[in-house]
């Protein structure tokens, strides 16, 4: 594992409209995922872990914050910037009111004029700054794929320009030109989002029952503009082989497979575009025990073989512990703790994490009889009325969502 950050989630907010108010499904969540690691995301149902995954792959338009993939911003929301403008306007109005009051009292006109000017300038500065931010966010959000395709096309042009310079034979040049055209066409359909793929929870619902396995697996390639039948066939067979199925299976329909095999088809579909990053949204929850291990082993093998980075969303903590390098714990839209998996299980700091860990049933009857669940009650546990909590690094790589007093307590606890 390197320190090369492949995905950076920065103050991600995802709100949903709900009746009159808003549901803060994901509220100000930040984390980095390093290349080649498995990042586990756990939490109870409704805590926003799936929403986070879906926001990353742009199934939703995010409300605020940004997500960077390989350094390029792929999602951006405008809410935070708009909030800043709103706050600045409110401050401006308050200041104006004050100035008006002072004028009534007969304060020095000159001083007041200077102050008004300063206030106006300040507002303009903030507005200009934030508007630029908003414009760039919208631009990035909308056009990241186009920009990526353009860059890819430029790259293709560059390589072929070099090749053409080296070539002198007119026939070969014509062939090169044709090749370039084809490569450009493919590059124009290349999307940065293709590098992120998703494996869904329910292998039955996520496969189209009217498509054969070949069509399902090759759909991505076809949409990307690949027309070469032989190449598609070759790729599909390679994928089937990778996930432990045989080429014969390609002509069948999803209903002819068992749950584990269907999940393998789902995995094959997700890796055919050579992604670098996979979001596995509870890929084993719907499977039988004996099959779960097969799928986990498969994902593990693929990860090493293809150099994948995986965001592993699950609620079975023993599986997450086994599979992940680092784990993030979410609670009601907030990321409350983030640590390497061994560290998290050895020294859980946030009371919610403790409660979550105490709830895992282990296949050990004697331990189970003695296990007591810790109840997490956020109102009793934290006093955030004065000091607001933020994500703080308690020890190396171990982040906890806490305020200053708690931070001191946790640090003392660890040392």
């Amino acid at each position: 594992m390197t320190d090369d950050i492949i995905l950076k989630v920065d103050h991600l907010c995802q709100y949903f409209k709900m009746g009159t108010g808003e549901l803060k499904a994901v509220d100000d969540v930040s984390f980095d995922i390093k290349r080649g690691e498995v990042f586990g995301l756990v939490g109870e149902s409704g805590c926003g872990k799936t929403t986070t995954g879906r926001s990353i792959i742009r199934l939703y338009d995010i409300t605020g914050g940004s997500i960077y993939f390989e350094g390029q911003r792929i999602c951006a929301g405008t809410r935070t910037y708009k909030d800043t403008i709103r706050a600045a306007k409110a401050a401006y109005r308050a200041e104006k009111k004050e100035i008006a009051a002072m004028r009534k009292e007969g304060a020095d006109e000159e001083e007041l004029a200077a102050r008004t000017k300063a206030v106006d300038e300040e507002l303009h500065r903030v507005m200009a700054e934030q508007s630029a931010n908003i414009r760039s966010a919208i631009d990035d959000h909308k056009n990241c794929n186009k920009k990526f395709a353009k860059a890819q096309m430029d790259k293709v042009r560059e390589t072929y320009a070099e090749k053409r310079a080296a070539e002198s034979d007119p026939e070969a040049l014509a062939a090169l030109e044709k090749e370039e055209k084809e490569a450009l066409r493919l590059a124009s359909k290349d999307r940065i989002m293709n590098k992120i793929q998703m494996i869904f929870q329910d292998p039955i619902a996520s496969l189209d029952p009217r498509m054969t396995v070949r069509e399902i697996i090759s759909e991505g390639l076809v949409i990307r503009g690949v027309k070469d039948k032989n190449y598609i066939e070759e790729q599909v067979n390679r994928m089937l082989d990778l996930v432990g199925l045989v080429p014969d299976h390609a002509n069948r329909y999803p209903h002819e497979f068992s749950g584990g095999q269907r999940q393998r088809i789902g995995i094959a579909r997700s890796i055919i575009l050579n992604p670098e990053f996979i979001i596995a949204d509870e890929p084993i929850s719907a499977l039988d025990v004996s099959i779960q291990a097969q799928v986990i082993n498969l994902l593990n093998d693929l990860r090493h073989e293809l150099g994948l980075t995986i965001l592993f969303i699950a609620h079975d903590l023993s599986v997450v512990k086994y599979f992940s390098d680092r784990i993030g714990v979410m609670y009601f839209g907030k990321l409350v703790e983030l640590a390497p998996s061994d560290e998290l299980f050895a020294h859980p700091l946030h009371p919610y994490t403790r409660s979550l860990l105490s709830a895992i049933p282990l296949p050990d009857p004697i331990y189970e009889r003695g296990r007591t669940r810790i109840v997490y009650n956020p109102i009793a546990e934290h006093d955030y009325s004065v000091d607001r909590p933020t994500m703080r690094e308690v020890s190396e790589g171990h982040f906890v969502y806490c305020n200053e007093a708690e931070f001191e307590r946790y640090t003392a606890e660890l040392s």
Partner: protein
Amino acid sequence: MEEKEVKLEVNNLKISFRTDAGKVQAVRDISFKLYKGETLAIVGESGSGKSVTNRAVMGILAGNAIKEGGEIVYDGQDLMKISEEDFHRIRGDKIAMIFQDPLSSLNPIMRIGKQMTEAMLIKGRVSQKNSRRDFNTTLKLLKEAMDGAFPNEAEKNKQLCSDFDRFEFKHIALEQAYNRATEAAEDAASDIEDILFRIEKEAYKDVVRDARSAVSRAKDSFDRYVVYDRAEELKGLLKEAAVLLKSSIPKRIGAFFASFRGREREEQADFAALAATLTSIRSILTETLAFPMPNFFAMGYYLTFSQEPLPALGVEEMNTYLHDYLSEKFMSAFIDRAAEALRYSHEAACERKRVAIAKIEELRPVFEAETLEKNACYAAVKALSAVVTEGIDRLEIVKDNLAYTFPTSLEAAVKLYFDGVVRNKKEQDRYASQSKRYEALVAAGKTPSYSVAEMDLVDLKGAREGILSLLARVTENFSAKIAKTDDYHAKADALIDYLKEKASGVVFKVTKSMAKLRALKLMDEVGIAEPRKRFYQYPFELSGGMRQRIVIAIALAANPDILICDEPTTALDVTIQSQILELINRIKMQRNLSVIFITHNLGVVANMADRVAVMYAGKIVEIGTAEDIFYSPAHPYTWALLSSMPDLDTKEKLEAIPGTPPNMIYPPKGDAFAERNKYALKIDFEMQPPMFRISETHSAATWLLHPDAPKVDPPKAVVDRIARMKERGGIHD
């Protein structure tokens, strides 16, 4: 060893399904017993037949299911054979089920509250009626037995029994009133606690409204035996609270304007004074609730037959006094007589049992003949059914399943034989004619494109042996019963407890408002926030976890005897799962419930199970206590399950089980797991292993346990894990 009461017995159950592709053998000959107050976990993959078994127990098999044989005995009835009408009384009421998919087990167009209370109201009435009926029959049987034991004192017997009946009525009335009042007091206390908390946190919204309802609820708690001498004090406080509340609420006429100022008005209310009053009301309520419950059983007798008023004593002294009074005047005589009656009843039954055994001996030759004779057999079935049924001691509280189901079992066994005779003949004819045609074709020099299907014959010899073994089992059972000597006093006590239990069943009367309160309480218990709001919502408005809680609450509302949980927590996350498991465990302890827990999560099994049955391809491959299964597993499938699940210490590669379960349309000839089993022996592919007994509680079906089998150690992952668990649990070999 102490003998545990068997709640449910499944014997040689076989179920298959007709499908387009052929007959799927879902359950292939499984037997297990469920004891009272224990949790039996059934573990296996989907398609292993665990759900089908339990659906058979519930009587909700799909339409294409074929019940091929076996019996499910509950409360002296074979659930495979009773009519739908009889099943109706058991399903949901006695045996309840929690399903995996909560949405499909809720009615989408009915409010949650209605769905929760509906069953409570109906079942409440029915169970009250049934309790009353059981009470009456048992008392009547007891009287008859008394008459038998003391033939000259019929008058006195009648007097005793009717006295018992009469004061039991009084007891019922007293206890009912007490229950209602305590419930009200408990509710009011908890509501007040909540309100005080809100006042303390200065969250005044709706405080006044809720306080009003709490005060009115507290008024319901005026029962002589709940509040005792604190009644006056409490009344005064309630009045005070009412006055305080009234002053703080805007007048109805000014409601419109008040809605603008409402907040201010409410904030103006004298919450400090209100809090003080409520605190003292609550302290009185909790104090009175802490009093022990009076002995209503004895009090009922005193109030019915003693002319004098109750002596003024504390609860505990009063209970001793009443208890002594009752024993002296009535109970000791009654118990003595009941004991005698039980002895008489037992002896009479023994006599009849001897007759039955003699009859069985006499008629056995009918079934031993080489070919059975139909009329003679059915006549023998009729005669034997009559004598064996006669031989039952009706006053036994724990019903002896074997004798009760004997008539139906015997008839089914005999029917199996004679149906087989007819079928075999047909089958032989078919085979003969088809092979004749086939041979004719061959003789004519053609090669037929088909082959003649083999004869599918019923094993007549086996069927006959089944009949004989049934007879032998009954004889053995009866002889054991005759040889047994009992402590009749203890049995009389148990009988009276049984009568009391039935009477208290009559006490629990469910009204609509009570049902609502109970539903709210249950919803609160299963962890649903804002139950009052949820009560009026529809299922689609709730999340999956919430829905599952509602389903569990509904299943528990009927107060069942056996609870079948079909993967109830599979769809839930760990925290909720843990809460729900705790809930089921707690309720199991409280109500001495027997639970069948179906799951594939071994962690959950370890948490819940007293005993574990591991199922694979329609058979139980290993059964034992939780310790047996987790600390000394014997079947390769159990090893595979344990090693394929990571626990918190697992670092090495998981040992996945290769392949998939077999197609049950063509079940393998040998051990079904042999295909996926790396420890499989040659014999595993040829012959099905029988159940090998490892210890008193533990047995497994694998040839590895055969004395001639090579010694095989469990996989390293399992051995390591067990060592880790033992270390953690502090067990050393």
